[in-house]
């Protein structure tokens, strides 16, 4: 496996506030990585460093480039959609297509037109006259028609309704992703991306608290829902956290043998949002 992003001792401060604290991170080719953290945890700062949008301290290598110094070269291999609508409002859809064709050496116009063919996006309209969903469709069509090695999505579906969100991720997997490419995603709607991720990075107050493959998480972390009579026994096995809802108590365990827990009750795979809450509360 090849490392495409390597960060060592990556730090970034805004005045006295440290947004990233000596972060070490490696990301390999062919992964879909979810970067998960609360607001202000440093997700966007991490992504902006990777994208060369901000200065930083420490070592950072993205596809062999120093992102801040070589942003324009790097952008031939990496594309991103950030958490805010960034397509210029005054531009027409057809101009946006022309623009990307003109400045990006690996943009495939036919492919972009193909993506837009299935939508009702009007080509002669300005971006400001399109609906939020349409703007995302245009942006995604532009980005997915670029033959990029890394795609970075920072809250790509913010403000979209559920139908668009589903379509968005479906299209991403169907039309863009393959084993040569890597996708980094941050989002608050963790549940929606849970089943497409292959790796997660949990970030809290500028530190990376956990980096793991999704498969490993399934083996390491478990949720036990014991019947009432086994609650005390479960508690004795020192769970990471415990939650009571509607009279039923569930426990989250880390690194316990599944068989051992199964004797006490039903064992389930942990979902990312529960893991997120556990990690953010604990320690």
């Amino acid at each position, binding site marked *: 496996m090849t490392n495409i992003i390597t960060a060592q001792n990556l730090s970034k401060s805004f005045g006295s506030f440290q947004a990233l604290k000596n972060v070490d991170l490696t990301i390999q080719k062919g992964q879909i990585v979810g970067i998960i953290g609360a607001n202000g945890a440093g997700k966007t700062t991490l992504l902006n460093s990777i*994208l060369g949008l901000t*200065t930083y301290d420490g070592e950072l290598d993205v596809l062999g480039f120093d992102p801040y110094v070589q*942003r324009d*070269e790097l*952008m031939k291999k990496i594309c991103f*959609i950030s958490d805010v*609508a960034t397509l210029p409002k005054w531009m027409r859809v057809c101009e946006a297509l*022309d623009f990307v*064709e003109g400045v990006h050496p690996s943009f495939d116009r036919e492919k972009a037109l193909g993506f837009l063919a299935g939508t009702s996006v009007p080509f002669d309209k300005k971006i400001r006259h399109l609906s939020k969903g349409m703007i995302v469709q245009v942006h995604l069509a532009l*980005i997915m028609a670029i033959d990029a090695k890394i795609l970075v999505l920072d809250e790509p579906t913010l403000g979209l309704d559920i139908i668009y969100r589903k379509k968005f991720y479906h299209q991403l997997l169907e039309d863009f992703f393959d084993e040569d490419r890597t996708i980094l995603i941050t989002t608050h709607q963790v549940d929606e991306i849970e089943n497409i991720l292959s790796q997660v990075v949990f970030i809290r107050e500028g530190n990376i608290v956990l980096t793991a493959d999704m498969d490993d998480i399934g083996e390491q972390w478990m949720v036990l829902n014991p019947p009432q009579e086994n609650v005390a026994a479960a508690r004795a096995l020192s769970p990471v956290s415990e939650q009571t809802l509607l009279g039923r108590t569930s426990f989250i365990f880390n690194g316990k043998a599944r068989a051992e827990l199964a004797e006490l009750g039903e064992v389930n795979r942990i979902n990312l949002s529960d893991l997120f809450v556990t990690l953010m509360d604990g320690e």
Partner: protein
Amino acid sequence: MLASIVKVNGYNPFKTLMLREYWENRRAIFTTPLVITAASMVLIIISMGVLGRAIHIDGESFTLSEVIANMSAHEAQELSDHINHLLLASVAPIMIGVWFCMVFTTLGSLYDERKDNSILFWKSMPISDVQTILSKILTVTVVIPMVAIGFSFIFQIFLLIVGSFHTIGTEYSAWDLLWSSTNLPALVLNEIVYMIMFSLWALPVFAWLMLSSVIAKRTPLLVATIPVALLALFEGLFFHSEYLVRFVGMRLTGAHILESNKGFSQNFIDFSPRTTLDIIQSATQPAFWVGLGIAAALLCVTVMLRKRNSM
């Protein structure tokens, strides 16, 4: 041919950036001079045609035809000699309008993209900040004035045609009186050279406006003007001089080109059109090169700040 120039044909980053500037600033580049030109034409047609006696001399009113018919040979000679100057002066409204377009386009150039977040889209493309800023300064100091010269030319031809109609029925022929004494290629060349030299002289001021545009959190105009005003006030109060005001004023009005030897205050009184050679010769003044040096420094800082400020 024009259609293929103003269209993106495959990968060509700098050309695309220039087109992008055109798409964004269509109003400043094209619509404004178009509207001023059209409005000037309409005004002239109305005043000549509908109102008829629009020219007032010593309390009497005449039509243009009557004025031409009553000219003495000497006056006709005078008109012929100065027709170029008249044509140059006639495009002042276009040039003034375009001047405002240049200033305000520059002030918005690096501010609007941050305000509407589109900077993140531009930065997601493989374009360097140097290329971006170069395309913007070129648009403001070359494209906008050159398009304006195109419209000025159309307007000047229009004036000659209108004038020609009014020679009908007089003893003067339109050719002798107007067309042959107007050296149109020389006139256009003069205007083009003037515009280029104006832009070069004014470059430090436009570079400053662009720097203000990259710094401003809001209202780039205030960011650009307030520090200069304060500094000028400071200079006046403590040094009793006005170098800064003169620097900005002379460069923004093209005063160096119009009058290369005399001071700022006499310029407007002493206005006389320069020959093309005179205009180019203004580049021999050391101040010209000092200005270009300042412009280069300011643009470097602008590039640095745009690289750093992505939000």
